[in-house]
């Protein structure tokens, strides 16, 4: 019995009043271990800063210049200009907020829905499991992107929270199934048995005993969900089915291809490549940082 309890506590990341400083310190130690992880973190921080402070760096209405339509890359326009002579760099920086906020919201919704339903389903089994899994199967069988296209014609995605919510509710199925599988395995382990015998509440068992053990997987999913959501969101904007904002990266791609002829004209290439570059760098940052996340949240790797 005492062995089971101690297994449980050792499986959890340390927390409590003194837990946070040591967690952050430990996380930093893990991140600086490899330069790639540091670069990844740097990129993520850079984009987060762009999203938070970017819009304050420029006037609310970005200036247009009809004499510099699709201007080439220069000191004045480091990434060239768009169809009305607005700096592509300014568009990327000011557009980061909507794109990243919506993606973060989508990731949070995905993780919250997926984790909660996966834990409950895997722990309680019986009809709860059946009902949740059938709903999950239903969500998994719906082709997500076409559904989003249809939804976007009837729903206004002017607010990033709405966009994030819709991306989240269509994307939690896979995570819920994976968390359920892990929960099914963990619920048979000794420390859970011990916790049940001690009479701890199901809430405690689910969220204090089992959750930390799947934390690594969830954290990685959170970051992957961010990039997945960015792709889905940019994809929707690229198709031109959601509100029109010139500084949205997807809208930039759409206009570059369908209005500016970037696939046929070198002149409009900077307009096409600017949002692509932003997406590439952001994805690179997330992928590089995932390595660190795995080690931070995976107790086994941490102990090693």
């Amino acid at each position, binding site marked *: 019995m005492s062995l089971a309890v101690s297994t449980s506590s050792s499986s959890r990341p340390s927390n409590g009043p003194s837990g946070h400083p040591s967690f952050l310190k430990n996380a930093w130690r893990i991140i600086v271990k490899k330069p790639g992880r540091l670069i990844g973190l740097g990129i993520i921080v850079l984009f987060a800063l762009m999203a938070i402070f970017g819009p304050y760096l420029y006037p609310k209405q970005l200036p247009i210049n009809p004499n510099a339509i699709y201007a080439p890359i220069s000191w004045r326009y480091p990434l060239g200009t768009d169809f009305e002579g607005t700096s592509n760099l300014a568009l990327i920086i000011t557009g980061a907020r909507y794109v990243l906020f919506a993606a973060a919201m989508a990731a949070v919704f995905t993780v919250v829905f997926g984790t909660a339903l996966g834990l409950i389903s895997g722990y309680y089994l019986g009809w709860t499991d059946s009902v949740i899994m059938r709903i999950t199967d239903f969500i998994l069988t719906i082709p997500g992107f076409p559904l989003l296209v249809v939804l976007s014609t009837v729903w206004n995605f002017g607010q990033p929270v709405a966009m994030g919510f819709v991306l989240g509710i269509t994307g939690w199925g896979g995570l819920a199934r994976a968390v359920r599988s892990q929960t099914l395995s963990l619920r048979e382990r000794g420390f859970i048995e011990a916790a049940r015998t001690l009479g701890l509440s199901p809430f405690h068992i689910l969220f204090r005993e089992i959750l930390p053990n799947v934390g690594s997987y969830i954290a990685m999913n959170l970051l992957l969900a961010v990039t997945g959501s960015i792709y889905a969101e940019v994809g929707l904007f690229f198709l*031109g089915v959601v509100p*029109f904002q010139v500084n949205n990266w997807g809208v930039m791609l759409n206009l570059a291809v*369908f209005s*500016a002829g970037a696939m046929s*004209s070198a002149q409009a290439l900077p307009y096409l490549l600017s949002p692509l570059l932003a997406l590439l760098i952001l994805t690179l940052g997330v992928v590089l940082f995932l390595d660190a996340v795995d080690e931070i949240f995976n107790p086994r790797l941490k102990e090693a």
Partner: protein
Amino acid sequence: MKKVLPLALIASLGVLAAGCGASPTHSAAAQTFTTIDEAHGITDGAPMNPFNTNGNSFMSFDVMQLGWFTNSATNPNDFYPGLAKKWQISDGGRTVTVWLQPNAKWSNGQPVTAQDVKASMAAGFTQGNSQAFYLGSVKVISPTEVQFTQVPGQNYNLFFNSLMQQPIIPAFEYDPIMGKNIWTIIDESMYTGSNPTLKALATKAQTELTNIGKSVVDYAPKTDISAGPFLIKNLNPGEALLVKNPDFYAANKIHIKQVVFRNYTGNQQIWNYLIAGQLDMAPFTAMPTDILHRILQVKGNQEVVSPSYVGAALAFNQGIYPYGMPAVRHALAHVINRDVVQKVAEPVVGTVSKYSDGMVDQATEKWLTPAQIKELNPYSYNLSEATKELEKAGFKKVNGKWMMPNGKPWTATIYTVNGFSDWIEAAKVISTEMTQFGIPTSPDIVSSYSEYLKDIALDKYALAFWINALGPEAYPTFQRIYGPNDGYNVVGGQLVYYPYSNKTEGNWVDSPQEIPLPNGKMVNPGQLTYDLNSLTAAQQRPIVQKLALATNESLPMITLWNYINVQFINTTRFTDFPVHNNGMLDNPPGVWIMSGYVQPK
């Protein structure tokens, strides 16, 4: 020897076969005219039916009209012969007699007869097309002679013009779909009197016509039946191949063996075809300047420009506050820099509109005297003039933002349609200009044009883009403003006005029924526009002048740019394009080909 002979025979046959095979393929390839259909791409599986909006039928190639317009700004009855060899207009334009080409045949060898023309007009009734030009009756006089008359009491001056441009379909294919009593239903549906029994019968007949119309649209002939110079040989999602129709009445004028229509889903694909030098002809396509330069660098590609009588405008819904105030519309016309808008949105196929008077500039210069043109307010870009207008109307600027006379901040949304890249870009530029002036404005895109038309009629948009000045004739030009969109409908041959408060009849412009001329005299634009439909060009002139001056003063919409009909031809494979014949050039290329133009090199 015995073995050699068969071998030699086989070898010689092989050479012969190779020769036969290679020669026609080569010459066919050389005589393959490649283009795109300006209305739509290729929809695999769609019926070969001109009434189906996605149908695989190609006007002037495998679908014929009685005649082909010359786009004349002065004579709407000027036509090139089509299936009609000659015609006679009598009774002041109310009766038209047409004589068909005596040798006209369908591609199955059957002759094109007056019955086919009558069936085509019946099919037009099922689509609402024949009613639109007040067709009253169709009388078959002989197998090659047909007489058309207008609805009694009507005097529509574009009767002949519209009649000549209806697609002609084979009666033996479509009559079974429409039923034997189609003309009884049509006659019943046209009753406009007050007898309640006949009125009820008319309503029933109209519903029947609508239902028959759906069957007509969905009808899919098994093979292409063409009375035109070509007929469809095969079709796949990438392209449609049409071959010369040997039964065409003027087959001796056709110098091309086959035509390929390429599929496309957007302008970008058309640009790529042009840059690759693959299209022998491409109709009007919006494009950025750099793409134009790239297209013109390709060997053989040439730009052909002809007049176009279409404008793009920013329209106001005057029923939505504050756009019912003339000062607001005038001020916004001064805020919008049309030079910048055109340069960004329509640099290649547009010119800046000089006069916001409901017509394209070319038409204005034709209809108005120089003195009248001087009277038109050019609404040049002038922010201080805009400020003056707004302040005079009770608007106030607080912290750089305009407050409306009702004390509320003034914000705006400009609506456009997904895929209409020129409108979208223009909406963005105008939004920037209005925001910088102190009216926070954003563009918004509606997912489809059909939804856009539905919502604009339901008064959902205060500011929206609109095609105006749909000429060259004066009546359709002004009807784009003071027609059904402004509550003026023609019902049973009478002008009926539906006010803005009637939410089912689509009055979204909501111009006052009386608008001022520059001299202060009031005119009724709906009545004046309606009057245009029954007058000669000379009689129309004073009315057009009044409408232009009043429209410029009232400004229900700001014309931003006039479109230019820029087409492309490639002279590498073909020569003798009708580049100096504007009337011919405005028709689809099948008309050029059937008129003897376009020869392989």
